[in-house]
Structures are given as structure tokens and as C-alpha cells.
């Protein structure tokens, strides 16, 4: 889908004051209701959680959680999504690229996430950015079919 003209896409952090934007997005994007811990993690991750604005409309978001494992920092992508009408114009890539940039800047050892096994588009998308399927967790989901998921990971070479 092409656009009539170049619309600017910009990113903005998540704060108390605009958290409802993220909630609104999640409500329509995902079949799961997220609890307060999700939002607390998102806010405390700082630069790793971003809202994407398409000509001043909030249309997508990436939300991560920072984890430390054995002295190194890991990033877990909790959610990444863009509203349906605004897909296909590179907003998701922009969000993910931002987080990957942050990872290199902050010496993150690896970044990973869970994907439902049948979500081929998503797997394809992440592979494009150097992610690989590293594990499969059976019965990860309770309410949706298929219930299995992959763990998709990208490791950063430690310098």
C-alpha cells in the first residue's frame, strides 16, 4: 500500500500521562488483557518502550521489559503492534529498529520474544531483523489456539 505523500512517523516515550494511549492500542491489537505489571515494566524500561505517531496520530507501539541474567542485560519484547490501517508503511520496522539500536548502544546481550507458532507473518518479520527460533514452549497460551509458542531470539556479539 502506497501513500499519497510522505507522512512523518515519530516516536515518543510512554509516561503516566499518556499511558492510556498504549492501553487503547493493546485493547484493539491483542486478545489478551494486560495487567498493571505490564505497564509498570513498560514505563520503567524507558527508551525500550515507544509509541509510534503517524502524522500526530498514535498508531503503534513497542513495549519491552528489561531483565538481567547473570550480570548481563536481556530485553524481552512484550508487545509490538501497529493499527491495521497503518500497517505496511514501515512503522513496525521503525519501532523494532529503534529498540535494536538501543540494545547495541546499551550493551544488551540478547533480545527475545514469544510468538504463537502459527503466526508466520510475525516469524518472517523477525527473521528479517536477524532473529531466530531458539525454542518451543508447548501450551504457552491458555485461551487461544494453537497453544504452543516459539521463543524467537537475537543475540548481540559481545565486544
Amino acid at each position, binding site marked *: 500500500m502506497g501513500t499519497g505523500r510522505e507522512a512523518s512517523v515519530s516516536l515518543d516515550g510512554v509516561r503516566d500521562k499518556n499511558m492510556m494511549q498504549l492501553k*487503547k492500542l493493546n485493547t484493539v491489537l*491483542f486478545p489478551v*488483557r494486560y495487567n498493571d505489571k*505490564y505497564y509498570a515494566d513498560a514505563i520503567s524500561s524507558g527508551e525500550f518502550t515507544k509509541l509510534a505517531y503517524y502524522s500526530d496520530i498514535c498508531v503503534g507501539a513497542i513495549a519491552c521489559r528489561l531483565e538481567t541474567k547473570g550480570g548481563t542485560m536481556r530485553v524481552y519484547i512484550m508487545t*509490538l503492534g501497529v493499527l*491495521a490501517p497503518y500497517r505496511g508503511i514501515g512503522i513496525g520496522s521503525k519501532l523494532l529498529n529503534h529498540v535494536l539500536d538501543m540494545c547495541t548502544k546499551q550493551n544488551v546481550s540478547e533480545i527475545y520474544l514469544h510468538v504463537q507458532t502459527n503466526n508466520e507473518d510475525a516469524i518472517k518479520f523477525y527473521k528479517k531483523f536477524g532473529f531466530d527460533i531458539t525454542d518451543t514452549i508447548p501450551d504457552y497460551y491458555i485461551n487461544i489456539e494453537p497453544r504452543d509458542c516459539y521463543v524467537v531470539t537475537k543475540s548481540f556479539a559481545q565486544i
Partner: protein
Amino acid sequence: MSQKRNLPSWISSRDPPHPQPESKKKPKDDADDEHNIRNAPQSSSTTTDFSKLLEGVVFVLSGFVNPERSTLRSQALAMGATYQPDWNSDSTLLICAFPNTPKFRQVQSNSGTIVSKDWIAECYTQKKLVDIEQYLLHAGKPWRKTSAPQNTTIRVEEPFSVTEVKKWARDDLTETISWLESQEEKPAPGEIKRIAAEGVLTCLQDAIDSLEQKKDVGSVTELWSFVPRVVKELGKMESSSKTENSTASKDQLCKQAKSWKKIYEAELAQKGDEEEEEAKSRRTSGVASGYDSDETVEMTEEEIEHAYRNVSVDKVEANSTPSLSLSLSSASSASSLSCPRTMGAPLPPKEANLFKLIVKSYETKQYKKGLKAADAILKKFPSHGETLSMKGLTLNCMDRKTEAYELVRHGVKNDIKSHVCWHVYGLLYRSDREYREAIKCYRNALRIDPDNLEILRDLSLLQAQMRDLSGFVETRQQLLTLKPNHRMNWIGFAVSQHLNANASKAVEILEAFEGTLEDDYPPENELCEHTEMIMYKVSLLEESGAFGKALEELHKNEPKIVDKLSYKEQEAYLLWKLGRPAEASKLYRVLLSMNPDNYRYYEGLQKCLGLYSESGQYSSDRIEKLNALYQSLSEQYTRSSAVKRIPLDFLQDERFKEAVAKYIKPLLTKGVPSLFSDLCSLYDHPRKPDILEQLVVEMEHSIRTTGSYPGSDVKEPPSTLLWTLFFLAQHYDKRGQYDAALGKIDEAIAHTPTVIDLYSVKSRIMKHAGDLTAAAALADEARCMDLADRYINSECVKRMLQADQVYISVTSAEKTAVLFTKEGDQLNSLHDMQCMWYDLASGDSYFRQGDLGRALKRFLAVEKHYSDISEDQFDFHSYCLRKMTLRSYVGMLKFEDRLHSFPYFHKAAIRAIRCYLKLHDTPKSTAEEDEMSKLAPAQKKKMKKQKKAEARAKKEAETKIEESTASGVSKSGKRNVKPVDPDPHGEKLIQVEDPMAEASKYLRLLQKHSPNSLETHLLSFEVNMRKEKFLLAFQAVKQLLKLDAENPDSHRSLVKFFLKTGSTSAPTTEAEKLRCSVLEAERPSISQLQNKSLVEANKEFLGRHEDSLVHRAAYAEMLCLLDPSKKTEAIKLIEDSTNKVVQQTNGAHGLAREWKLKDCIAVHKLLETVFLDSEAASRWKSRCAEYFPFSTHFEGKRSSVMPDSVYNSSLKSNENGDTPNHPMGQTELNDGQLEAFKSLTVST
């Protein structure tokens, strides 16, 4: 060249154009120039040689233009002075038109002496040397050459050097002390020095006094056992000059004595310093720790003098705080030590200095210090009036009002002849905004001291504030006469004349002032002020209709005007006014090239081209021309939006469609949420809304199917569809098709649920559709999406108040409202911010819920805001004249004059009157029970709950107040604690004795400021009927008929009035008879009645408006009123009304019907409360529920009162914000698009 002074003849004091008030009347003999004579020698001056009066004076002129310049020069030359064109070392005196000319500053820095021209003029006319002192603009080196011997006057130079005199002072002090110590009754050792110093000074003052009274100094020395050196010297000089036997010599001597006295005072004060230091340290250690030790309590005379001079010259004008520079002459003149004190007698020097200190402390806001000084004086002279007054004034600033009034009144009583006391009394009233009283006090002060500049200036400010315009003119004129060398006084006089509707006089004054300016005026740093003055003058000329002269003036001064934009605007306007449209239109084009978005320039251009109409209606021929004009303009100014928007107003049909499509498309693409508001005005046109609808619906369809606008290949961004839907939703809302509107807005929300405006608009649609609860819930949802946005927060509060959620629910309006206030006293802070929309909306809510006290409280708060706003102008009366922002100043004054006609005040006053009407109609004791019994049980419960909540809130508030006062005290001492509102719930307000009297108060304001509002007269009718003031009520009826005779309420009032007056028993009293005869005479003049009965008139009214619901209802109500037996007929008439479908070009989205929701609710209430027919009411309700499915009032099936509604308060949407309109999971997870993806996690 007979010009005596620089004042034009029509304002010279000789020939006053206005009758002088009594206080200013002067004895005939000194009518020539009263203020000069007062201080000038009284005796004849025949002894002086006129041609040698100014011998030895080498003068320079500054700030004068011819002919005045040459007049002054020849006058001075005639008196023996020498003229020099420029200042050099030979020059002795600069004669200056006003301060701060370049020469003035030069001479000032060379410490030369500067005098105003009046001195020359006075000397010339009086043919004698007039005392120069009061004409001095700057005192420097001697103004006469010392080498020139003068036999007519004593030498002015100091015969003894200052150090020598200082030595005398020290010697005198020691000698006096030793003399005192040798006496039998000697004072206490600690006091002796002070008393000695006082003695010396008093003796000197006595000598001065006697000189002033033309007596010999010798007479004083005889009375004193110890004569200080200085007095002896005076005596010597006197006897040596005796031979010349001129009174002038005594004056000179007196002057000499005074200057010596100053030296003495300084020296003696210094001498006493060491002791004072010691005493002070003793004192401060004893005083409580709260005393600020860095405040120097004692000051030397010089310091005081210096500070005082600064304060009196600059600060008085510079400061907006009430300042006073009291002339202290009466307080500082001396008396002998042994003299018994009498009321109002002058103070001895020490106390006089202390008194000056009080004044100074007051000016510098060091109140504690002032209070101390006052107490020190009062200890000795407990009844000294001026000190008492000053103490009072000081206390007033420390928030001790009652004491202050007591003291000041006491002071005035003790010294009723003191202008200081009266001035202080005036200031006190002024600080309490009692301007009328303050004016009276000032007038009293002026009666005693008619030429006191400070008091005159203060008085002029009050007169400007009170719009006592003729008094203002008078005072300003007097100020100018007294001090014509101040620019501000000229300007002030001109402005006063302007305000007093005499623009041409104001121009004359400004011209006279300009005549005093030099050619090189203004200096660099005053260009802006000068521009302002010229532009003001031009606007005055324009106002007086002299357009040609205005233009001339403008052109003449072009190089001096720095505000080039105003210059061009004014020029273009004047050219147009003068019938020179070609030149004007050229200018407007220039202006447009500077700012192509200024609508006024377009309007001006259209006017010049003869293409402007007030109504916006144009012939097709002119539309052609206009279109061509804007076509060419839009090619010129491609970035201007005004040039694209304006044609939409005049274009028609196809042309319009084309233009509006061109206008809308880029804005929809860009995403401009305000687009609809921008186009809203087009909806008044009969055909344009249909065209818009057709157009935008086409766009929506095209974007949905092809992704582009009709007839275009360019793909639109995804947000275009969103904004198109958004526009359509508002469009249908505007046309009353709420169903369609909701459909569109829901679609938009499903498309992009993160756009806040969507929820705001949906909330508005719900409000219009009659579901206030849902509207409030939606507004809250919008609010939650951006907690940092004050606007949506306010909008949410307003919706909550409209839904009457004042204090019941958790997310109550009050809690939301204070989210954006400062922490601390939350609702008070809303009040401080003059948040009027909140006052009105919450007042309305309280009113609906029957809480008249709180409602009144809120409405009266708005009234208070308006009086505050009017109060705020006070500071500008002096500020603007000084800063020369004249055009804005006059604009501000005019704005303040019509302040009370502004909508918020209008609304508040109307609502307050309604509250009072309700109070009047429900007797006090039973009001509450009545209220309860009328309500349905469910509502009763609600009320009870509400009462409980109220009690709880009250308790909370009380504890909070306690806390805050407790913490406030600990933090900031006793100050800064806001007085706690003694009546937070307005309980006292509803206890008012005579509600109708209160209502009349506001009614008068409405009648004065909103005479064209139907509601004003409607309320006047209601109030006056209750007060049985039938003639006033009749007047209201006549006004109503004049404004809108066909309005149902006008009709109601008419019928009610004649029914009431016709039914009262036969007139008994004279007044009643008179009333009847007036009404009888007037009745035929009312066309609706003429010779018809009320029943007939009512019928005719129906005949004229058979199709209108509101008119039918009015008819039915009156029918029933006139003949209660026809109630059934009346109800049937209402029920037989039909709700017609308004013709729509597309009927796809539900039908818009004629009836308005609010009218139907009014009819419902009429059936319920007037006809008391609950069956008919419920029939009406179910019928209206069909028409208004969203209405909560009619319990429509889609409203939030329905148990299955998502907005039903019991299951109101929670703050997690799941919008019920698009249930979760609707969006597909794995939609087939290429890069769409989803990562799902469950938080671990």
C-alpha cells in the same frame, strides 16, 4: 507676544472654562496666579530695579520653539540676564520646558541649575524677583554670577562655608549641654544630648519663623537664655542689612537660616548617632526574636531626606501601590521646648523626623519600622492627629483593618485641619475600594491644601476609576496648571477631555503640548512613546470625524512613527474614509503582502473595491467580481488559508461545491481536527450543508473503494478516511441526525481508537442527543487518554456537571476539576483563577438539584469576578499615562465600560435572579420538605445519599482547613493565611430577607448592559410581578413585544400581565388609580390586543403559529390559565401536534425531525407540573422516547438509563478504557497483510 505662560488661553487659570468648585475659590486679590504668590514676597517690589532683576544670570534655553522661545529670551534679557545659545562654563542657568531634554541632562551632569520657564514669566509679570525654589527643576551651582554685585538683594552665596557651620553646630551642642547641666532641674543624663540638640534646633526654627513673619531675629534671642551661634550670626546679618530695609533681605536671610538649619540637623543627628547605636543594641536584644535586626530603625536626617526626596519625586508616579508624599511642612515646623502641646500643633524636630520615617517606611513597606516610629511619637504626643492617621494606615497594610479605621478616624478628629489626615483617610478608603468615600476625603484634603499635587493626582485616579468624567477633567486641568512642565499632565488632561466626549478639545491640548517640543524631539529612547502620542492624536481626529486632518497629521509625522504597521493600517483606513479608494486599495494590497491571513485587510480591500456587504449577500454580478478578485489573490498568496476560506462564504451552488472540495481535501489529508468548526458557519446557509454532505459522502465512498479522492489517482494516507468519518460525524450531529453521527464516529473510533478528538466529539453528540451521562463517561474516557491536557480535562468536568455528577460518583466533577489546580486550597484556587465556566456549570448543576445556596454562591462568584476585573483597571490609570500606551488605555476603558454586557456575566446574573425567584416562591421553612416530597422515592434516596456525601465532604473540608491553617501558621507566621470562607455552602445566602430586592440589584445591571436580551425583560417581568410593581412589569412586557412579539414567552407575559391587572379589585388608592389610567391608555397601543379580549388574542396567536410546538404549548398554557375548565382541550391541542420530518436530500441516515429535544422536555414539564396530568405526561414521554432514543429524560431505549447500556452508571466503563463499541478481539490477529505481525505474550 503677550503670552504670559505656556498654557493656552482657554486653560489659563484666569479664565477657567469650568466653574471652579468652592474649595478652590481664592481671594480676589491673588487671583492672578495663586500658587506663586503663596510663597513669594508679599510686599511691593517698587524698590527693585526691573532691568537689573536678573543681572549676573547667564541663561540657556532648552525645549522651546518659537514664538515662545523668543518671548522668553526677550523677557529674560529685559530683566538684565545674558543669553547664550549653548551651555558652557559661563552659563549659570538653564531654562527648560520639561525635564530630560538632552540639554537638561547635560546641565544636570555639570551640576548646573535648571529652572522652569514659569519663573522667568513670573518675575517678568510681577516685576520682581520671585522665589526661585519652587520653580527649580534641578538645583546645582548658584544661578547667578557671584561677581555681579547686587544692591537689591542680599548675596545668595553662603557667607560661611559648610564646614564652618558644622563646627558651630558641634560647639553649640556642647555649650548647650554644659548650660543644661548647670541648671537646677537638669534632664536625665541619657536624655541630655537629645534635649540639647532639640533646643538648639528649636531656637533656630523660632528665628526662621520670626523671619518668615517679617519680624526681627532679635525678638527671638531675647526669649532664649542660651542662644546658639547660628542665631547670633543671623542676628548680625540682619542688623547689617537693616540699612537697606528691604523685605527681600529678610527672605534671603530666612533662606540662609533654613539652609543652615539643614546642616545643623544633619550634624546634630550624626552627633547623636553613637548613643543611638548603643541604645539600639540594647533595645534589639530585648525585643522578641521575630524582629528583623537588619532593618535599620534609625536613620540620619540626611538619609531620610534623601530617601524621602527620591520617593516623593519618582515613586509616586512609578508605583501603583497607594503612595503618598505628604507635604510635611506642618509636622516639621518647630515650637519651643517649653510650649504645651495643643491639638494639631507642629512637632519638634526629632519627632518630625520620626514622622518622616513613618511615611518613608510606609512607602517602602517596612511597616514594623513605621509602627515603631509612630509609637515613639505617640508616647510623647498621644493625640497627634497626623501620627495617629499614619499609624492607622500602616496597620491597614498589616491586615488590622478595624484598628486602622479607628486610628485614622481618631486622627482626623484630633486634627481636622490637616490635609495629611484627610489624605490618609482617603487612602484607607481607597484600599478598601470605597472610592466614593475616598473621593470625599480627598476633596476635604484639597479644601485645606488646594494645590497639593499628590492629592490631586490620587483624586484624578479615583475619578477616572469612577468615571466621574467632568471631575476628572477638572482635576487634570488643575494638575496641568500647577505643573505644566510634565508631559504626563498634558497627556492626562487630553485623555480626560477625550473620555469626557470632547475629542476635539483633546486634540487641541495635544497640539498645545507639541508646541512646547523642540524640533529634535523626541530623543532616541522616547520614539515609541512619541509614536503612541501621534497615533493617539490621529485616532482622536478620526473619532471627531476630521479624517482629512487625521491623514495630514499622519503623513506629517511619518518619519517619527516607529509603528509602521499601525501607520499603514491607519493610513489605508483614512484614505478609504476620505473617498480615495484607489490609493487605499493599493495600501491594503501592501498590507496583505505583509500578512495574507489578516481578514481585516481583505475586508478593507473589498470595501475599497465596492465589493463589501455587511450581510454577506451579494448579487451574482458582484460574486463574479469577488471570485475573480480572490482568484488572483490566491495566485499571489499561495500559502494563505484566508484567501481560500473567504470565497466559501460568498460562492454559491456549483462554484461553491468546487471551491469547498478544493478547500477540504488537503485539510482532510493533513488531518486538521478543527476543520468542521472552521466550516460551521456555512451551515446557516440553506443549501450549503446539503452540498457539503453530498461532497464528503462521495469522498468517503471513493476513499473506501479506491483509496483516493474522486477523480484522483493519488493514494491517500490511511488517516484520510479517519478524518473524513470524523467530519461526517460532526456534520450529522449538526443536522440533528444523531443516529448517523454516532454510526460515523464509531466507525472512526474502530479505525483508529487512539485519537482523542473522536471521543470528545462522540461525547458532544451524546450530549446533543440527550444522554448526558454517556456524554460525561465519554469525556472522561477522552480525558484519561491525555492526562496532561487541560482542555479535555475542563471539557470533562463540564460534561460531568451537566450530568449532575457534582459529588456523587467517584470520578466526581469537583475531583476532576482540581486536577489542574495548584496543590493546597483546591477549589479556592479555581476561584482565584476566575474560572467562570466552572462557576456557571456547577451553579447550574446545584440549581437543578435544588441546592439554591451553593448555586447562588457560584453565580455570585461570577459577579464578583466581574467586579474584580473592573477593579483591576485601577492600576492602569497612572501606569498607562506614564507609559504612554494611550490607544490601548482608552480601548481598555471602553472595554471596562461594557464589561457587564459580556455573556458570562449575563448568564450569571440571569441565573442568580432565577435563584432568587425560586427562593421567593418557596417559603423558607418548608422549602426543603417540599423539595423532598415532590421527588420520586428513587430520587429521594439519591438526595439522602447526596446529603450524606455532603456532610462527609464538609467534615473533610473542615479538617483540611484546620490542617492548612495549622501548617500555614507554622510556615509563614501569621501572614498569608487566606481567610476561611465563613459560608462555603451558601447557607447564609439563602437566608436573605428580601430575595426580590437582591434580584432587582442584578436586574438593573442586566437592563443597563443587556437591553436587547429577551431574557432580561422576561426576568424583569417576573420580578416586578412578584413585587407588584405593575408599571415596571408593563414596561417589561412592552420591551418583550418590541424585541420579539411572536416569542411564546412574550405572549405568555402579555396574557399573564393583563389577566393579573384586570383581575385586581377596583382601584382604591391614588397610586392604583393612576396605574389603571396609564394601563387603560396604553392598552390600545398594543397591536396584539387592541379591542380584543385575552381569549381572542390567545386564539389569534395560535392562528399565526399553528405548526409550531412551542407556540401551541404557550397557547395551551394560556388557554388553561384563562379558563381552567378548558384543560382537556389544552392538553389535546398539545398532543395533536405533529413532529414533521425536515426535508433531507438523502434519507439514508435516519430522519431529522423538526422538534427540538429541549422544547419537548419543556412540554413534558408543562404537562407534569402545570397541567398536573401525569397520564398525559407519560403518554408524551413515551412518544418522545421514540423521537429521542438517546434521551435520558424520556428514557429512550438507547439511552444510558437502560440497564443494558454500556454507560449505565452501575456498569460504567472503567478506566482501563475498553471501549464497548468495538469489543475486543475484533481486530484480526493474523490478517493476511504482508508485514503485519503480532507478538503475543502473557506476562509472566
